[in-house]
C-alpha cells in the first residue's frame, strides 16, 4: 500500500537520509512513502546483525555460551519488525527509531539492547518467548523490572526508554 504524507507529517521513525532511494519519491510539497520498503531499509542493518548470529559456534564468547538458537534468530527477525511499527506508533511523543544492539545470551537467546540516557531496555528472544528487562540503575531490586513481552507491550517500553 502506498501512503502519501505531507512533509510536516513525516513519521519521525523514518531516517531522512534514505529519502531519495527507489522506495520514496519527493515533490516540493509532499512525500510518497512506501511504508513497507522504508521499514525494510531502516531495519536492514538490524536484520543483518541478527542473521549473522547464525554463524556463531558454541563458546563464541570464550565463556562457554551456547550457539544462538536458530528458532530464536528467526523469531527475533520477525519481532523486530513489530517493534519498529510499535515505535512508529509511539513516534508522536518520542525520538526516532534507533536500532538495537544485537547479541546473544549464554542460553542461545537473541539479545536486543537499547540505551537512552539513564534508561536501558533489553529484550531476550528465545524460540518460544520474548522477555523484557528495564534498567534505570544498578539496584536489582528497585531499579530493574522484567517480564514477558506480549502483544503491543513494546510500545509502552519504547515510550519509557525515551522518556
Amino acid at each position, binding site marked *: 500500500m502506498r501512503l502519501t504524507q505531507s512533509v510536516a507529517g513525516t513519521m519521525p521513525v523514518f531516517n531522512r537520509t534514505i529519502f531519495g532511494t527507489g522506495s520514496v519519491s519527493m515533490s516540493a510539497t509532499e512525500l510518497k512513502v512506501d511504508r513497507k520498503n522504508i521499514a525494510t531499509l531502516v531495519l536492514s542493518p538490524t536484520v543483518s546483525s541478527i542473521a549473522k548470529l547464525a554463524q556463531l559456534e558454541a563458546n563464541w564468547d570464550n565463556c562457554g555460551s551456547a550457539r544462538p538458537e536458530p528458532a530464536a534468530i528467526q523469531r527475533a527477525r520477525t519481532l523486530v519488525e513489530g517493534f519498529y511499527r510499535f515505535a512508529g506508533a509511539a513516534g508522536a511523543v518520542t525520538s526516532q527509531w534507533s536500532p538495537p544492539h544485537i547479541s546473544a545470551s549464554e542460553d542461545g537467546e537473541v*539479545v536486543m539492547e537499547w540505551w537512552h540516557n539513564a534508561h536501558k531496555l533489553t529484550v531476550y528472544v528465545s524460540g518460544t518467548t520474548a522477555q523484557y528487562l528495564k534498567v534505570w540503575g544498578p539496584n*536489582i531490586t528497585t531499579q530493574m523490572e522484567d517480564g514477558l513481552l506480549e502483544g503491543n507491550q513494546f510500545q509502552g517500553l519504547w515510550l519509557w526508554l525515551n522518556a
Partner: protein
Amino acid sequence: LVSDDEQLYRSVRNETQFFKTVDGAVRFSNTCFNDPAGKVSVDRANLRNSAEETKFSPSDGIIKLLARDIRDIGPIPNPDGGDGYLIDVHPRPIPADNPDGLPENLSHAQIEASPDFTNPSRFKKLKEALALLADGNGWFIAPS
C-alpha cells in the same frame, strides 16, 4: 579472600556483540558477562603481572571492576524467603594440572551468588548491574 579494594579484570572480545558507542561513550552489553553457570570469571589484578595476561586474544579489551562495587550489588531479596542472595567475589584459582585442561591461572576468581540463583532472570539482572559498573569505568585497555 578477595578484599573490597581489589581490582578485577575481565577480557572483552573486540567483536560487535560486546559493546557499542552511544553518544560518545562506550556501553557494554550484558553479553560481556555471559556465563552458563551463572558465575562470572574475573582475574584478580594484584595476582597478574599485567592486565594483558587476562586477554584471550591480543585484540581483546579489558574492563576493570572493584570488588566492593560488585558486593554492593547485593543482597537481592529472595521471594522464597531467607536472607536473600549475596553477591560476592570468590578466589577460584585454576591449577596447572586441572582436569578441564584449562591454562593455569592462579588469579582466577568468580562473581557468585549465594545461594545459587534458581531463576535465570536474576542472573540476567546481575549481568545488567555488572555492565552498568563497566559503563561507569569505561575501558581499562581498549580493544585493538
